Structure formats: structure tokens, C-alpha cells
């Protein structure tokens, strides 16, 4: 019977945490208006969440695009369809790989940093101290980071896709000799703004919200010890990545039927 009891207990604690996570999300939403008079906090966070993730996105985007170009060419050339390489690379990136890979990298780079930062602020009583100074840490610390994550993700995903297409171009046109004009004109005619690009942006925005939410909650809910913070950081990366992959399936099913 003990395993049944264990199962029940872990089930209960799972749902309790889920509930706390959603209450936390609600309090972030309620705190959003408080950001208006403190725009400078948002700028600071956009820098640390967005700008500092820029390089890894740039490099990853370039290589993913190059690999797509290489693999796509090898398959398409069998059917004499190597002119479609551009549109294949562009659609894969804009619809799927751009938002998803960016979100995974974002969880690893910015999400883990957010969790560690908030967790350490909790462990060193900085959040408690703010509360005692009558400053709401949700409004002062959490909300600016949340909005920064929400805004930075779509921008990073867009950069990822753009650089990826350039990578595909470099390999396909520069290295393998695909026709330059066909590469770009097929992209232009077959990539739709509403169906492809806008849906990609919506996806990346959703991922941005989810990853930042998980990262901030894990930090805020962390056990305030060094071990607790390290566990929370690991959980952020694991949970955020799994949720992004799961949500991607749902969103794809809804968007591209």
C-alpha cells in the first residue's frame, strides 16, 4: 500500500505546485500595469534576456540553416527539384525550427539565468527585504523580466529564421550551385505572410510566455538554499523544453491543418 500512498502524495504535490504556478501567473498579469511608469526596468531586462542571448541565436541559426540546405539538397536533387531548396529551408525555419529551436536555446540561456537570479535573490532574502520595504517583488522584479522574455522571444526567433535562410543560401547557392534566382523567387511566391510568418510569430510569442513563466516561477518557488536553486535551474530547462515541444505539436495541429 505504501507505493499507492506515495503515488497519491506526489500527485497531490504536483497539483499543488501547478496551482501555485497559475496563481503566480495571475499575479504577474495583475502586476502588468505597474510596469508603465518604470520603463527603464524593462530596458535593463530586455538587454539581459534578449541582447545577451543574441550571439547563441545567431550562431545556432546559421548552422541549422546550413544543415537544412545540405540535407534538403541531397534529397531534392534526386527528384530534380533542387530549385525548391529555398522554400523548403524557409518554411521549415519560419514554421517550426525558428520558434522551437530558439525557445529551447532561450530556455537554456535566458531561462536558467532567470531562475538562478530569482532563486538567489530569494535565498539572500532580497525578495523578503523588498516586501518589508513595502515594495512588491512581483511588480518590481518579476513583471519586467516576464515582459522582456515575452518581447524578446519573437524577435530572437525572427532573427534565427532570417539567419537560417542565409545559411541555407550560403550552402545551397554558394556551395552546391542551386540557381540564385530560383532560390529567392520560390521563397517569395510560396511563403505566405499570414499562414507562415504570422503563425510562426504567434508560436514564438507563446513559447516566450511559457518559458519565461516557468523560469520565473521555478526561481520564485525555489527552496532558498544553494541545492534548491540548482535543482530549480535544472527543472526550468527540462520542463520548459518539454512544454515547448509538446505545445509546438498542439499549435502546429491547430494552425496548419
Amino acid at each position: 500500500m505504501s507505493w499507492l500512498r506515495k503515488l497519491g502524495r506526489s500527485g497531490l504535490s504536483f497539483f499543488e505546485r501547478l496551482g501555485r504556478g497559475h496563481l503566480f501567473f495571475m499575479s504577474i498579469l495583475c502586476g502588468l500595469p505597474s510596469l508603465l511608469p518604470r520603463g527603464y526596468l524593462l530596458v535593463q531586462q530586455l538587454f539581459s534576456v534578449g541582447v545577451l542571448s543574441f550571439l547563441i541565436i545567431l550562431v545556432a541559426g546559421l548552422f541549422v540553416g546550413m544543415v537544412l540546405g545540405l540535407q534538403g539538397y541531397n534529397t531534392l536533387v534526386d527528384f530534380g527539384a533542387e530549385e525548391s531548396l529555398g522554400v523548403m529551408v524557409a518554411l521549415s525555419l519560419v514554421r517550426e525550427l525558428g520558434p522551437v529551436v530558439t525557445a529551447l536555446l532561450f530556455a537554456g540561456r535566458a531561462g536558467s539565468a532567470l531562475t538562478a537570479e530569482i532563486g538567489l535573490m530569494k535565498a539572500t532574502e532580497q525578495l523578503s527585504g523588498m516586501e518589508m520595504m513595502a515594495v512588491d517583488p512581483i511588480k518590481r522584479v518579476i513583471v519586467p523580466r516576464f515582459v522582456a522574455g515575452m518581447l524578446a522571444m519573437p524577435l530572437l526567433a525572427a532573427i534565427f529564421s532570417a539567419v537560417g535562410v542565409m545559411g541555407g543560401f550560403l550552402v545551397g547557392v554558394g556551395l552546391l550551385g542551386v540557381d540564385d534566382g530560383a532560390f529567392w523567387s520560390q521563397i517569395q511566391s510560396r511563403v505566405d505572410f499570414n499562414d507562415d510568418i504570422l503563425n510562426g510569430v504567434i508560436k514564438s510569442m507563446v513559447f516566450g510566455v511559457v518559458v519565461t513563466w516557468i523560469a520565473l516561477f521555478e526561481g520564485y518557488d525555489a527552496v532558498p538554499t544553494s541545492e534548491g536553486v540548482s535543482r530549480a535551474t535544472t527543472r526550468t530547462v527540462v520542463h520548459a523544453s518539454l512544454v515547448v515541444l509538446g505545445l509546438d505539436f498542439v499549435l502546429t495541429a491547430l494552425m496548419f491543418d
Partner: protein
Amino acid sequence: MTVENHNSDDVLVKVRGLGFSRGSRLIFDGVDLDIRRGKVTAIMGPSGTGKTTLLKLIGGQLRPDQGSIEVDGQNVHKLRRSALFELRKRMGMLFQSGALLTDINVFDNVAFPVREHTKLPEELVRDLVLMKLQAVGLRGARDLMPSELSGGMARRVALARAIVLDPMMIMYDEPFTGQDPISKGVLVELIHKLNDALGLTSVVVSHDVSETAAIADYIYVLSGGKVVGQGTPEELARSDSEWVQQFMNAQPDGPVPFHYPAQDYVEDLMDGGEG
């Protein structure tokens, strides 16, 4: 619940029948305390008696299971969030770690509550911050980052931050723990002087007997969730409670045993690990 009849103007913090537990562990079991205006009141007791918890209860960060806590006539745990925040603006708290914000320098740390709660022009903020830093002797350290401060300096900066909005009371959480003798002396002097000069009410939670007895007007000794002794430092020194004597004179054995409860020593050795 019996509420003693004090002159309510004289008492700033009134704790009645306080009960609080963490999980299955009972931390407070019917604690009554009065903290008088303008005085330094110390709350002492061995580690793990919930002294810090008491400060968090007074500050409204935790909720008691039973009993009530009134600060300046307001029941802390019946206030709405906005009223509680208004009350907290008049309460300073000095955390054991200092709890300085690590991403901004000393000056901005002290200016933080002023900038958050007032719309004073920047020149005035500067004057105010420098005055408070001067009071704790760290005007010259304004450009340092918290990571560059020693533990004692960090506490003094946190103290400057706690008094920057001129609160009515300050709560000190273990101000002397882990300090060298000079820093201890500085903090003792500061707590005492600030209390008198600014007309504050101070609550000092500590287990450093000599430092605390030197500045406290009144001492409560807590143990096992109850108040086991109270009085002025002189009264406590003359207390006939064995427990209070053991604590105040730092004796290793007494009502608080040296040994953690265990089976008989000889029996334990003779068992020889058979079990």
C-alpha cells in the same frame, strides 16, 4: 484570551496568545509580548526558537495560527494588502544577511525605498541618502557594490536603508551574529544611538547575551515556544529560573541538557552493534 490592561499609547507592538507551527513542529504556543515605544526591547533565546519567525509575524510576512499581533493599534493580519504595505513603510527591518540588492551600489540601495515610495527630486534624494550613510559612518563607501562590503559594513548599509524613510520602529534580526568585536561594538553603539536620536522603537532579536544586555531596556527570553523569562537586564541577571541562569551565563549543561536524548551510554556501548 485574557488581554492585560496596558496603557495602549505606550505599547507599540502587542502580541497576544500567539500560536504558530511549521508542519508538525510547534514554534509558538501562547506567547504574550509588549514592545514599548521609544525603548529597545530584546527577544532572546537559543537558536531555533523562532526568533526570526516572530519578526516575520510582526511584519505580516507570515500568518499566526492563533492569537493576534497589533502594531500601532492595527491588527497586522486583518489589514488589506495595501494597508499592510502602508504600515510596513513605517517599519524598518534589518535582515541577518543585510538583504542588500546585489545588482546596484550602496548609494542606490539606500535610495531604493525613497525612489520607490516618494517622488522627491534627485538632489533631495542625494542629500537624504548621504545623511543616512553619514549616520552609519559609510558616506565614503557610497560607490561600492554590496559584494565589496564586509559583513559588518553590509549590515550598516542595510541599517541606513532601514532608517531612510524615518520609520517608527526597526526590527533587528540577529545583528551581532558572525561579527568581529569591533563591528559588534559599532552595531551596539549604532542601535543605541539611533534609537535615542531618532525616537525609534527597536526590537532586537539575538542570542548574544552581553551585547544585547548592554543596550536593551527590556528582555524577553523565549524557549520551547513560550516566554520563560522577562524583565530588565538586571532583573534577569538576578532571576531564580535555572533556565534563564543557564542561558544568561552561557553554561553548557543545565535544564537544557548537553546531550541530545539517547539511550543509556553504557548500554549503547555494550550493544556492540548487534541490533
